[in-house]
């Protein structure tokens, strides 16, 4: 089966005036099948947001993609398309939901008009039909009393409702893939639960493929089909969700699990990873996790580990798990 989305050798770099460039996303490859939910997990600055933006080619000014990068959507390589051709993909094939519902909506435009914009961008429809369609979408994402909310401005809505609006906007042109970048991070726990339930529901009813970008392993459990763990611009582990949670292979993944407070823990102390997340400008050589890794050997400091099988449905980029010893 050909995947819906295939990303190969994704390289994103910021050329600097000095000639050297920082490479926040370094040789990332993965696939997303139709209807699948893939989670991309990592801490701040690991490159997960840039990876998401690269899919519909919405990279910030100054960022460039490597020549070997391939982003194939249903067989079409998006890296070869012109800006106007890309527009037929944005929203229509690949839709996005962003982290901050407060700033992701235009403050001076009514929310209904912003959703309708997404419809008009891809279809010729009359204003009346578009409004009907917007009302249906508002109902679908669980907004109570849609006829009164359709003409509201963003500031009149709560954070949870704004995130629902953003989801309605993403669904407006019937996309195949939804890229959700930390869709619940800015929300309170009880509202987060509402939004996650909505996403689960939409995925079931619409057969939507989702790339869920998050730092929270908690929302990945029991929801994602597969998990990609990113650290310092690279994918360090990739596995089926159940396998990752029962048998994490990469020391970083294991460290993450040990860092999270759990409701069923018996001890008071957690086992943190030492040190702090490095910045793209000073990423270590070899395995980028080696300065913080308890298992690191001399080889790790100089050689980049490849992503290789570490178990059933599981890949990890670690020399030690791949059998190398001191």
């Amino acid at each position, binding site marked *: 089966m050909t995947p819906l989305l295939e990303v190969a050798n994704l390289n994103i770099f910021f050329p600097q005036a000095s000639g050297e460039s920082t490479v926040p996303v370094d040789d990332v490859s993965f696939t997303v099948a139709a209807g699948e939910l893939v989670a991309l997990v990592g*801490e*701040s600055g690991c490159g997960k947001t840039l990876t998401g933006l690269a899919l519909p080619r919405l990279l910030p000014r100054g960022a460039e993609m490597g020549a070997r990068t391939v982003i194939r959507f249903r067989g079409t390589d998006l890296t070869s398309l012109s800006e106007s051709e890309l527009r037929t993909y944005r929203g229509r094939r690949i839709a996005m939901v962003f982290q901050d519902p407060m700033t992701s909506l235009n403050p001076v435009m009514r929310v209904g008009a912003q959703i309708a914009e997404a419809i008009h961008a891809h279809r010729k429809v009359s204003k009346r039909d578009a409004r009907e369609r917007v009302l249906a979408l508002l109902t679908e994402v669980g907004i*109570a009393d849609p006829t009164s909310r359709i003409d509201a401005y963003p500031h009149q809505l*709560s954070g*949870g*409702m704004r995130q629902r609006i953003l989801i309605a906007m993403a669904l407006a042109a019937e996309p195949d893939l939804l890229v959700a970048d930390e869709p619940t991070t800015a929300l*309170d*726990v*009880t*509202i*987060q*639960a*509402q939004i*996650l*339930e909505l996403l689960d529901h939409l995925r079931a009813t619409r057969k939507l493929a989702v790339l869920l970008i998050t*730092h*929270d*392993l*908690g*929302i*990945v*459990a*029991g929801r994602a089909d597969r998990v990609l763990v990113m650290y310092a611009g690279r994918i360090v582990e990739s596995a089926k*969700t*159940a396998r990752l*949670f*029962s048998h994490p292979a990469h020391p970083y993944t294991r*460290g*993450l*699990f*040990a*860092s*999270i*407070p*759990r*409701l*069923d*823990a018996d001890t*008071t*102390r*957690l*086992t*943190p*990873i*030492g040190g*702090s*997340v490095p910045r793209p400008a000073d990423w270590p050589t070899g395995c980028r996790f080696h300065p*913080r890794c308890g298992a690191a050997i001399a080889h790790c400091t100089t050689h980049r580990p490849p992503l290789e099988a570490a178990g059933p449905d599981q890949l990890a980029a670690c020399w030690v798990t791949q059998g190398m010893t001191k």
Partner: protein
Amino acid sequence: MIPLLSVERLVKHYAQGGAFARRGAVVKAVEDVSFTIAAGETLGLVGESGSGKTTVGRAVLRLELPTEGIVRFEGTDLATLSPAELRTLRRRMQIVFQDPFASLNPRRTVGASVAEGLEIHKMLPKREIPERVAELLEEVGLDAAYAHKYPHEFSGGQRQRIGIARALAVEPSFIVCDEPVSALDVSVQAQVLNLLLDLRDARNLSYLFIAHDVALVRQIAHRVAVMYLGTIVEIGPARTVIDAPKHPYTQALVSAVPQPDPTKGTARIVLAGDPPSPSNPPSGCPFVTRCFHPMKDSRCAAQRPSLRLVAGRDVACHYAD
């Protein structure tokens, strides 16, 4: 025995707008909150944004004046103190902030920030201050040489350690930790959390640990108070409350915590709607608009439930059992 800190019927209302603003809406940030903290004890204060937990933390330190209520520290009513007496007492009660970027003065060296309390209270002769600052930095796990650097040269976790060192400098017995780890990366959160635990043990500190993450509070706190819309809805021993919550809101809050364990498919309680605005809270039980309790009735809408003892903790619900 006198508790280290006792808060009785604390109320904080804000007028919306400035000093000359017309009579506007009143934001009822905190409504009738009472609790005590013993020496060496950690009380976790959990709630979502707008629940009033940060306001409680600030009012306890008298960084904001309470509208009503009494805050006693070691038996002394803080309201009876003169400004100078209050400033002296501040040595004993400190605060650690959420935002590691804004909590340090960007124009002063780390050493100057840590030394500030020592200077204010003239705790040491001037020439001994650098040595003490170095000790403090090492106590929170930083290099003593960092004293000459500026905050922007540090990562979030390091800055949070500096903020803790600044609070420790005046040798307090009580610290308000206002979401001290929620702005940090997951892998760094645990480091700072462990540091706070170590300091608590080494210095017999008491914490008011404010957080939105129930799992985190369960990890560090002895007792927990759950806030909703300015009131405490449930308070008791941390593991008793969180492992078997009795208030419907606490139940929903605990069940909504995303847990990194796919095998534990517990029934999720998803609350409908948003919390009401604190400027216009419902009469009766504050949770009535989102409550799913099967026995919810007109009494809930009319009468505010007070805290009562249920299964080893206090719950503010007419029908909790």
